[in-house]
């Protein structure tokens, strides 16, 4: 990361730390800059020490602070501006999106009504994920694909925590600013970080976001209402997601999506893989070498044949 990126990362860290209750905030803001640069999330578990998860290690700010249930309740109150009920729907799914696109995942006791989780009470732990926005990391990939008359269907693949969503967000911005209408099915509000209708990240000037509802439902609604040229889905996890993407592709819309996978073998074991190989033309694989991320763009067919020859990791 260059100086500007480091500065931005520090700003993002501060913005996330400001969501913490006062005593934790002071501890979080007091750590060294190197921690701030590599911090990925804050971890709050009742009865355990407050910690900061960095890319390669976990740091406990000094003096050590033991988390109480009041801390978790205060965190939720701050994140929802004193109105936890406004986040009821997302809380059912175990998270809350706060200002600046920072996402808080929560654990506790799920209250089940009519076979569905209606809320989570008695919170036991929370992770406050620091939103990252690194501009132009997808520039090379975009420039390679933008010249094509029809933006190719692109799948971003990597293990968890390597930066799929960050790359996806930057590609959304680049494609949108390039003049194509982009529609985002943002179920967990992670891509846009929308709060009160305002995106927490720069997602481009021609981007429409539907957040909060299931991805397949959102894709169909976006297709009907926004006539997108590119449809975006973060984390394909089920055959239903693929079905919705297939429908979008049949309507002549380009697809941009991410999927968790360690390798092509890993991806090919998913129940939806057959549709993946049929729908997507290109794959971006993100890997980390010596702490630096590298992005490798290839045709899915090349990747598959490389994998068959044993060239894949």
């Amino acid at each position, binding site marked *: 990361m260059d100086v500007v990126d480091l500065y931005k990362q520090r700003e993002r860290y501060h913005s996330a730390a400001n969501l913490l209750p006062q005593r934790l905030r002071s501890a979080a803001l007091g750590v060294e800059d190197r921690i701030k640069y590599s911090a990925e999330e804050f971890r709050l578990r009742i009865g355990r020490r407050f910690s900061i998860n960095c890319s390669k290690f976990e740091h406990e700010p000094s003096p050590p602070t033991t988390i109480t249930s009041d801390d978790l309740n205060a965190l939720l*109150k701050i994140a929802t501006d*004193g109105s936890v009920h406004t986040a009821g729907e997302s809380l059912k799914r175990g998270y809350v999106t706060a200002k600046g696109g920072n996402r808080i995942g929560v654990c506790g006791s799920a209250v089940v009504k009519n076979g569905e989780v209606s809320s989570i009470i008695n919170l036991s732990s929370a992770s406050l994920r620091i939103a990252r926005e690194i501009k132009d990391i997808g520039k090379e990939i975009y420039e390679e694909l933008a010249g094509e008359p029809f933006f190719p269907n692109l799948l971003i693949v990597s293990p968890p925590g390597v930066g799929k969503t960050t790359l996806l967000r930057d590609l959304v911005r680049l494609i949108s600013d390039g003049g194509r209408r982009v529609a985002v099915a943002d179920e967990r509000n992670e891509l846009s970080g929308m709060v009160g209708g305002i995106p927490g990240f720069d997602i481009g000037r021609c981007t429409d976001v539907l957040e909060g509802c299931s991805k397949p439902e959102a894709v169909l609604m976006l297709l009907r209402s926004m006539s997108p040229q590119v449809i975006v889905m973060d984390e394909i996890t089920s055959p239903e997601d693929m079905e919705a993407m297939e429908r979008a592709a049949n309507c002549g819309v380009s697809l941009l999506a991410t999927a968790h996978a360690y390798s092509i073998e890993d991806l090919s074991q998913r129940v939806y893989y057959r549709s993946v190989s049929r729908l997507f033309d290109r794959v971006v694989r993100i890997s980390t070498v010596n702490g630096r991320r590298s992005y490798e763009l290839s045709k899915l067919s090349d990747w598959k044949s490389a994998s068959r020859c044993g060239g894949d990791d």
Partner: protein
Amino acid sequence: MIKTFGAICIILGSSMIGILANKRLKNHVALLQDLIGVCQTLESEISSKLSPIRSALLNAASSLGNEESICTVFITHVLSEMNEKGPQHFSEIWLSSVDNKLDILSSREKNLVKELAMVLGGYGVEEQISAIKTVRDGLNRFMHAAEQEKMRSGRVYMTLGMALGLGVVIILI
């Protein structure tokens, strides 16, 4: 001349005491009415629009229409304290604001309004609505009692004030 002037002053002064006592009763009723209105607005804002507490309170205050009413001052105080101390302290802010800004209410009425402190902005919409309804019903009962008190005692206070002034003047003369 001086005696007449003194007599007028005494009568006016004691009448004023009666008028103020009557006004206090009127204000009490008006405040309870406003609080019931606030409860109604909060109820609809939270149940139908899922509004955040801040905007629900703002809408409740603007629906009252009178920027100088005790209720509007109370809500404005709650909102400014939320800005200053942070939304996580809403409960304490609500409790202290009831004590400091609604001092015209009786302690039973205050306790009723304070019940909202732990509920507003919480997890469940249904819980909030049911708590607001309970408070609104309680305020309605208090308001009827306050109206009866105003009808019964309002004129008495005014008449007594004037009569007291006259009595003092007669004794002094």
